[in-house]
């Protein structure tokens, strides 16, 4: 590709995304569907603006998936993995096993050789981490049971790709075509099998070892240069380097980077890596979705509409049934079970990789592979639609009766002055407190079980993504006085704030902050009323600790409230002098900031707390002047 065509192509891709994604989001369709539609539109089927016969774009785009797995790995602290172990192995394992058995069984029944049936079963059992995570995050469901279970299943699937790649060569049942030749040959190609295995294991060990002993010092070194772009470059180099290494030894790059992510999950630069790579990941994933949209071969679909349609629906139905049953055994609510089943019923991006692989290794014939690529892409495109159907038809029905009818009524007959967004631990305390004083509340929440319960208790509740303009409008944001923002992920809160600033500028916002750094972000967003969630509690512990040590209750209480005031003032001061450029080092910066804080908290500062009751000077004066007039 010369520069001219490259830039033109880039322009077309970006333009399509810039136009379609906001439209899709506006319509409540979610960004994934926006990208897919953009791809379909610029693809050969509609405008034919891009010609992607070689699959170049797909390759570039798949790098988005690689990066996504790196970032997922970064999130996976060992403690989290351990906590999720049951659902990863139990739910994930059963999902892959059952779906594979059913799909393989049906394929075998339809007359495929058993090797092909098994390969298909395994490939089609996988779901799309990219689509599902993006969607769950957009809906703010990651912390909910359905989000966590979905994540566990996806994680298991992503890991299961490794043994699949290892197993597939055993399933060879067709003569090896010349297809193998044109893929880039790997370093290990010529080696005997045992050596290959050794090299593979060695690379994994290398990643783990290097992550510990090379990458961290390297990151520290680079961070010291205080050049933000070099740090970004290092992060990219890391991911690309691992991807190359993995491809050289014939392993999946996505898995290599995933592993590297896990190794670095405990590192002090985790957040910097995350924030630096996040935009790349976002763009590349978007590109990936566009490429999927563009790659749907509509001529093929048009030629065999019934067969393809049947296959897509059949595969998705089979997977959905398995997921539904697993959701039930995991004690998800009815609504969440459907969400779980619909959400994960598509076939994922790894299927593209595996389909190519199986084709090259003489397992699946060419026609079947192309057919399946279309099926996979279509199933991905259908997911956002399936979820929409779920959200608009099922979710409402599964909420207690006539939810939507009530929403209309509510908006007319009562205007609550307070909206609470997010009714988890934080929000519900605020809510209970206000309700105890008969203050009318409207609650926005996205946990179906909780919404159901709250409705039964007579609360006015709206189900859904609080940052959506329509939901806010329905909840009466136009006439309310306050909105108390207690949503869980902090990004969600920022999103909501932006929506409110744009559409409901008169609504006063009281915002929960997870910690100091979150509070800084909120200040940058112009928030005036920020409540750090751990602040008051920590100080209460401090007060009690002082009391147990024999301090007077009133003294401890005053000390805490003074400390609180000083700390809030300090927060504002530090936020004002914070410098974006320096922020690259935030782990070290945080320590320096802590040091500053500790210095200002020094005892001397706290001692002027009760000068009013200090009598030394009075007593002195009394001793000096026998008939002093200064003294009562």
């Amino acid at each position, binding site marked *: 590709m010369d520069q001219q065509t490259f830039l033109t192509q880039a322009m077309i891709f970006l333009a399509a995304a810039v136009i379609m994604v906001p439209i899709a989001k506006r319509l409540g369709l979610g960004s994934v569907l926006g990208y897919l539609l953009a791809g379909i539109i610029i693809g050969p089927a509609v405008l034919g603006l891009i010609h992607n016969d070689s699959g170049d774009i797909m390759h570039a785009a798949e790098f988005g998936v690689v990066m996504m797995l790196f970032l997922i790995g970064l999130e996976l602290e060992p403690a989290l993995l351990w906590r999720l172990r049951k659902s990863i192995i139990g739910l994930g394992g059963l999902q892959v096993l059952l779906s594979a058995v059913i799909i393989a069984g049906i394929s075998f029944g339809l007359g495929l050789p058993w090797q092909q049936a098994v390969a298909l079963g395994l490939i089609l059992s996988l779901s799309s981490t990219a689509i599902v995570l993006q969607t769950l995050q957009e809906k703010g469901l990651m912390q909910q049971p359905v989000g966590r279970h979905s994540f566990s299943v996806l994680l298991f699937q992503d890991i299961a790709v490794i043994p699949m790649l290892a197993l597939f060569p055993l399933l060879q049942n067709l003569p090896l075509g010349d297809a193998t030749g044109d893929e880039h040959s790997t370093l290990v190609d010529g080696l005997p099998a045992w050596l290959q295995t050794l090299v593979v294991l060695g690379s994994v060990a290398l990643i783990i070892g290097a992550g510990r002993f090379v990458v961290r010092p390297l990151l520290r070194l680079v961070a010291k240069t205080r050049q933000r772009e070099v740090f970004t470059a290092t992060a990219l180099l890391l991911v690309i380097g691992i991807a190359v290494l993995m491809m050289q030894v014939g392993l999946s790059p996505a898995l290599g980077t995933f592993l590297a992510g896990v190794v670095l999950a405990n590192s002090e630069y985790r957040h910097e890596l995350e924030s630096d790579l996040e935009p790349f990941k976002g763009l590349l994933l978007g590109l990936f979705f566009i490429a999927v949209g563009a790659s749907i071969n509509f001529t093929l679909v048009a030629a065999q509409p019934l067969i393809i349609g049947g296959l897509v629906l059949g595969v998705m139905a089979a997977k959905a049934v398995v997921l539904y049953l697993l959701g039930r055994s995991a004690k998800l609510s009815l609504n969440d079970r459907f969400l779980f089943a619909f959400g994960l019923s598509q076939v994922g991006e790894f299927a593209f990789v595996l389909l190519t692989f199986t084709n090259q290794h003489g397992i699946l014939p060419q026609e079947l592979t192309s057919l399946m690529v279309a099926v996979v892409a279509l199933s991905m495109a259908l997911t956002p639609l399936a979820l929409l159907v779920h959200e608009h038809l099922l979710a409402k029905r599964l909420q207690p009766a006539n939810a939507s009818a009530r929403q209309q009524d509510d908006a007319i007959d009562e205007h609550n002055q307070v909206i609470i967004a997010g009714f988890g631990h934080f929000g519900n305390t605020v809510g209970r407190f206000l309700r105890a004083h008969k203050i009318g509340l409207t609650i926005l929440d996205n946990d179906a079980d909780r919404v159901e319960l709250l409705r039964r208790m007579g609360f006015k509740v709206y189900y859904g993504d609080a940052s959506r303009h329509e939901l806010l409008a329905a909840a009466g944001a136009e006439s309310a006085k306050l909105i108390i923002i207690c949503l869980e992920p902090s990004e969600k809160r920022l999103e909501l704030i932006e929506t409110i600033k744009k559409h409901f500028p008169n609504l006063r916002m009281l915002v929960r902050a997870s910690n100091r750094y979150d509070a800084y972000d909120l200040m940058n967003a112009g928030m005036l009323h920020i409540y750090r969630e751990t602040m008051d509690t920590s100080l209460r512990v401090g007060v009690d600790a002082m009391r147990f040590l024999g*301090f*007077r*209750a*009133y*003294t*401890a*209480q*005053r000390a805490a409230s003074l400390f609180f005031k000083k700390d809030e003032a300090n927060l504002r001061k530090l936020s004002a002098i914070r410098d974006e450029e320096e922020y690259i080092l935030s782990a070290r910066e945080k320590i320096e900031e802590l040091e500053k804080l500790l210095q200002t908290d020094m005892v001397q500062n706290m001692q002027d707390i*009760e000068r009013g*009751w*200090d*009598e030394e000077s*009075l*007593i002195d004066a*009394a*001793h000096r002047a026998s008939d002093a*007039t200064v*003294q*009562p």
Partner: protein
Amino acid sequence: MPRLLLLFAHPALEKSRIHKRLIRELKSIPQVTFHDLYEAYPDFNIDIATEQQLLLSHDIIAFQHPFYWYSAPAIIKQWMDLVLEHGWAYGSEGRMLEGKKALNIISSGGPRHVYAPEGRNRFTYRQFLAPFEQSVRLCKMDYLPPFVVPGTHRMEQQDLETFAALYRQALILLTAGNAPTDPGAELLNDQLTSSGILTH
């Protein structure tokens, strides 16, 4: 035997010399309920029901506090505002405290002689304490002369010991049902002199 409720208020007891010493005497007087207001309500959020219950189960109410700005530390005021409810403590319906006795137990930086019309403070202790006296009356209780530890700014340790003993004696007399005979006396201290302990 009458029971005495000691409503104690010192916002910075850790810095106190006088009251810290006085309340050490309380351990050996079982008839006295020591109720440390700043410790119980560091947030000033006084529990009215509990306080009223305490009042009902005692016969003598003593406000013990340092003299601050010719009055009591803030929590005493807060306590009075909230606990002495109309219709409960005063008013035609409010007779719950009727017949009980009440007094102030205070310490003052200034010596006794400055609390006189010709002295630097121009008014007597009892004049300064008039709001207490009248509030107590309004609640249909009898106001007893205050017990005062004066001149704390220049008080020697041995004088403080004397006052501690006097304080102890006052509480014992009160809880023995021997309230002073002369409710108009300037200070409760004076009523105790007959027992051989001198006052300032």
